[in-house]
């Protein structure tokens, strides 16, 4: 008789009914929003603190005016009419963050502008200043030719590159960055959930071992049944949690759409006042990504098998120790591949067809994160997805076999920490 379902049911029920689970499931999305909100706030704050007060000594007498015409959020330019030595002293005294010298010869290309500051400036500041001075110089030279305002206006262009995603259906869907964001989010989610649920398995195994309940369990069922029941039960718990999160977030997005629609004025967008919020959003050029169902199906599949693969390994680690503190050294090698896969998430996002991306998504231990990212941002050939998934499944079968052999011996071992030699010995036990 197979008792995996009994273990599965008990493990699942025990966890899903716990207060911690209910809280994290309902509050998780809020937590994620707060998390990203804080990141955005911090980055905004970081940009703010970057703003400088720059003294400008304009020997040309014409360029500063044009520079000031360009809006700047980052820096405040203060015209200074004093000898350079004085400005230098003031800058060193901290009155200005730096000073810019525009020599008179600049207008005739006989001299270069120079920027002085105690901190030496940075790459982006240099870019910004070069752009402003170049712009001012251009404006000045155009002005010298007495061009008509029409010509000036026609010269004033503002190009914004639209990135479109081309799919087999021939559809040009919304902005590509939305897909990148989605891909990054899904990759991050699969990484987080594999680690979190893997850790739940780890602690479950350690708890059974340290409370000694495991000896009773395996006098009733085979260790493999206990291992699989536990891993599957916690996996099911994870799936329920992810589903609730997905529903909450979809609901939240729909609600956000309606709310946004209420704040948009139909008349300025050129649509009838009776237009639905969706039509309004479309007219305002706010598009939600049109992601095919396949991507979500693959996400669930790669999450499940990836989780199973790591859960088996985490369980093996758990069986080797008696306390949570003892896991650290053992967990690192197990978690290394998954950390590697998340480290490479941005190269994969930028170039989802690079050989790095393909290789990472074929190695079972690193496959789930890059594969989900690639599926979200680009078209991956079906054979490649299937090959990656088959290898992942094969990897799972191999690791669960190794893990269960270590597990069944490890859970009965007390008193000393297992060494690699012990592991090999356990593995060989009949």
């Amino acid at each position, binding site marked *: *008789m197979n*008792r995996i379902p*009994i*273990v599965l049911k*008990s493990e699942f029920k*025990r966890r899903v009914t*716990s207060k911690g689970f209910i809280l994290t499931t309902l509050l998780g999305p809020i937590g994620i929003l707060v998390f990203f909100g804080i990141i955005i706030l911090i980055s905004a704050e970081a940009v703010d603190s970057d703003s400088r007060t720059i003294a400008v000594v304009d020997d040309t007498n014409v360029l500063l005016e044009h520079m000031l015409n360009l809006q700047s959020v980052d820096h405040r330019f203060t015209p200074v009419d004093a000898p350079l030595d004085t400005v230098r002293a003031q800058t060193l005294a901290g009155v200005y963050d730096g000073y810019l010298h525009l020599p008179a010869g600049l207008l005739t290309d006989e001299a270069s502008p120079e920027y002085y500051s105690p901190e030496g400036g940075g790459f982006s500041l240099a870019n910004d200043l070069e752009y402003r001075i170049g712009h001012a110089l251009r404006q000045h030279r155009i002005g010298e030719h007495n061009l008509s305002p029409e010509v000036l206006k026609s010269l004033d262009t503002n190009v914004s590159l639209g990135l479109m995603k081309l799919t087999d259906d021939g559809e040009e869907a919304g902005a590509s960055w939305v897909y990148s964001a989605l891909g990054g989010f899904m990759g991050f989610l699969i990484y987080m959930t594999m680690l979190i649920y893997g850790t739940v398995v780890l602690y479950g195994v350690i708890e*059974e071992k340290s*409370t*000694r*309940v*495991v*000896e*009773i*369990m*395996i*006098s*009733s*069922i*085979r260790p493999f049944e206990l291992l699989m029941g536990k891993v599957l039960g916690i996996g099911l718990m994870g799936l329920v949690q992810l589903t609730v999160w997905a529903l909450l977030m979809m609901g939240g997005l729909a609600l956000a759409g309606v709310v946004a629609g209420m704040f948009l004025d139909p008349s300025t967008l050129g649509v009838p006042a009776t237009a639905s919020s969706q039509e309004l959003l479309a007219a305002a050029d706010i598009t939600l990504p049109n992601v095919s169902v396949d991507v979500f199906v693959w996400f669930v599949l790669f999450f499940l098998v990836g989780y199973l693969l790591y859960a088996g390994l985490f369980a093996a680690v758990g069986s080797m120790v008696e306390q949570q503190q003892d896991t650290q050294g053992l967990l690192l090698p197990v978690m290394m591949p998954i950390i590697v896969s998340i480290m490479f998430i941005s190269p994969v996002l930028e170039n989802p067809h690079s050989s790095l991306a393909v290789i990472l998504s074929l190695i079972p231990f690193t496959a789930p994160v890059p594969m989900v990212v690639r599926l979200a941002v680009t078209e991956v050939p079906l054979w490649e997805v299937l090959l990656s998934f088959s290898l992942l499944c094969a990897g799972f079968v191999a690791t669960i076999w190794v893990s269960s052999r270590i597990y069944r011996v490890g859970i*009965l071992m007390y008193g000393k920490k297992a060494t690699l030699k012990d592991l090999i*010995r356990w593995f060989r*036990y*009949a």
Partner: protein
Amino acid sequence: MPILTIDTVTKRYGKFTAVDKASFEARPGRILGLLGPNGAGKTSTIRMIANITAADEGEIRLDEKPVGPWVQRHLGYLPEERGLYKKLKVSEQLLYFAQLRGLRRDDATGRIRHWLKRFDMEKWAASKTQELSKGMQQKIQFISTILPDPDLLILDEPFSGLDPINSELLRDIILEQKDAGRTILFASHRMEQVEQLCDDICLIAEGRILVHGSLRDIKNSFGRDSINLEFEGDGAFLDPFVSSGQIRITSRTHHSAEIRLLNGAPARNILEAAVNHTDALYRYELVMPSLSEIFISLVEGKSAA
């Protein structure tokens, strides 16, 4: 009802031999006491019987069938190291263990009610296990062991942590099980309990069986070589016997001593000395050695050899 046969079984962990060609038998309707010092191989033996580990050599049979995963359906095992899921309610816990051992839900709930009542634990059924005292957890553990009516009961130190009233209740239940024809394996260090309960004993040390047989036969084979004394006065008269290696004092107070005769020393020498050197002699009794005395002399004889 099953006979449990351990047939020249050996178990090694790496280079360490935990059980060395052990053979013994446990019979239905009898209680076999499995005795041995710490690290003697008791737990290793029990784990092989419960099919938790496998024997390297030899065979373990229940009713002449070699043990395998099937044996766990016939087995109730109470390990020495107790363990329960702390967060589960008592009734959930018992139901989980019962279902794992093949009981149907409705069948199990009836039995759980019966046994909780028997142990006077009904009102705790909905409590979380971690809220229970150690003794109560002990009782829950025993209930889970006995719940599916196993043919073979393996009880490792079942009385530890129980107060006298509950110990007596547990003893009654174990004896009931014995009368119902179950085969019972009782592992313990508590010699007086073993002596009270067991029909047969099996003594293990360093993985080998030192003695195996019925308790009475084993005691008889040692003969009446022990003396219980009660007296008034100075007990120093015994010391020369000790230093000359004629006796060993196994327990001694101001007014009493339990003595074991060694190397065929005549019992009457002690009697004469007692009469001559004590103010009053209340008791002189020539008896068979206690089980703990047998245990000590066998284990020490083994390590001396």
